[in-house]
């Protein structure tokens, strides 16, 4: 089961803060983040990659879904 984080509607840097918290509280788990701006997609992707996660982005209508898997 992946941990879901919905940061749609939040402006910078709240999406990064919430995703980071989810990563810290769920070490080793896959994290799925729902995002609504390109800027936050880039910020959260950088956060994940810097922490050693692989990040896959897909688009869902107006929103984006990031699937972050730990450890590559």
């Amino acid at each position, binding site marked *: 089961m992946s941990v879901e984080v919905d940061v749609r509607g*939040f402006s910078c*840097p709240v999406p*990064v*803060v919430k995703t980071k918290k989810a990563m810290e509280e769920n070490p080793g788990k896959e994290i799925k983040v729902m995002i609504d701006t390109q800027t936050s997609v880039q*910020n959260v992707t*950088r956060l994940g990659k810097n922490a050693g996660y692989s990040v896959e982005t897909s688009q869902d209508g107006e929103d984006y879904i990031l699937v972050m898997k730990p450890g590559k």
Partner: protein
Amino acid sequence: MGMISSLMSKKWIILFGLLFGTLGALAVNWGNPANMGICVACFLRDISGALGFHRAAVVQYLRPEIMGFALGAFVTALAFKEWRPRGGASPIIRFILGMCVMIGALVFLGCPIRMLLRLAGGDLNGLTALAGLIFGVIIGIFFLKRGFNLGKAKPLTNTAGGIMPGMMVVLLVLAIAVPAFIFQSESGPGSQFMPLIASLAIGLFVGFGAQRTRYCSVGAWRDIFLVKDFYLISGILAFLVAALVTNYIAGNFAAGGIYHWGFAEQPVSHADHLWNFLGMGLVGIAATQIGGCPLRNLILSGEGDTDAGVTVLGYIAGAAVAHNFAIAASPAGINTWSIAAVAAGWAFCLIIGFTMRKA
């Protein structure tokens, strides 16, 4: 990440920072006030004065750079499909936080971008301010880590998103036509400016580059401490280096040049260290709570973010309050009510920080 791939991922923001810093320094040689080539806070303050919201006669001019920032971002957002009308995340709090940013900036005499330009022009008061900025940012991060946020924005109509770009077009028309009701400084910083077309062109370019790179002069310092992310700061350091090198090449540090190293007798600057520190500290905490520096909020307002638009209106109101109520500092030092206003701003930010923790 290796050194090379780390640099490659930052190449655009570093390139933009280099160009922005070069232009920011040269803007002074081309006519803008000394050590104020580009100051987002000062320029919004000049616009506030040009509209008569405050009557400080030396700082009134419709700075086309500001309209360029927002409109450059507007066109870029449309072109890159990032136009997203949205809003509703505590706009009234953002308005007052915007006032706090402006009050803090006008006690120091500059936004975090002018702080870098002042440093690049030898004004060491920029160091005191930088220490204050980082202090404020770290307190802002303390709140962010406890779950501080201003709530969720909702998608809005194109009409709502278009209000700020529309207002910027109106301001630009007023800057070109200069009808009699617009105030225009005859002396002081407000009377020093580049040709309108140059100001606008630089503004549009910065609007484009800042929209693409997400350039932010407060977020840069925040991301170092919050997530050890050095993306934004690389653009800030590039800006500082480029401005410094440009000032040396342009001869601004030469004998008879406009700049020298030190704390004293710097252009449009004072050396009251405590209030430079706490003033810029107020900018640091309030801008961290808002989510970005004044330039970043202008860019976001151009992307249809009406919360950022309300923040920009807060800056303009804050400038009016700062100059009407003897809060804004001057080269002579801080003003009658500077201390009270900075203290009130800090108190407001702390209350907001402790109380705004909605999921």
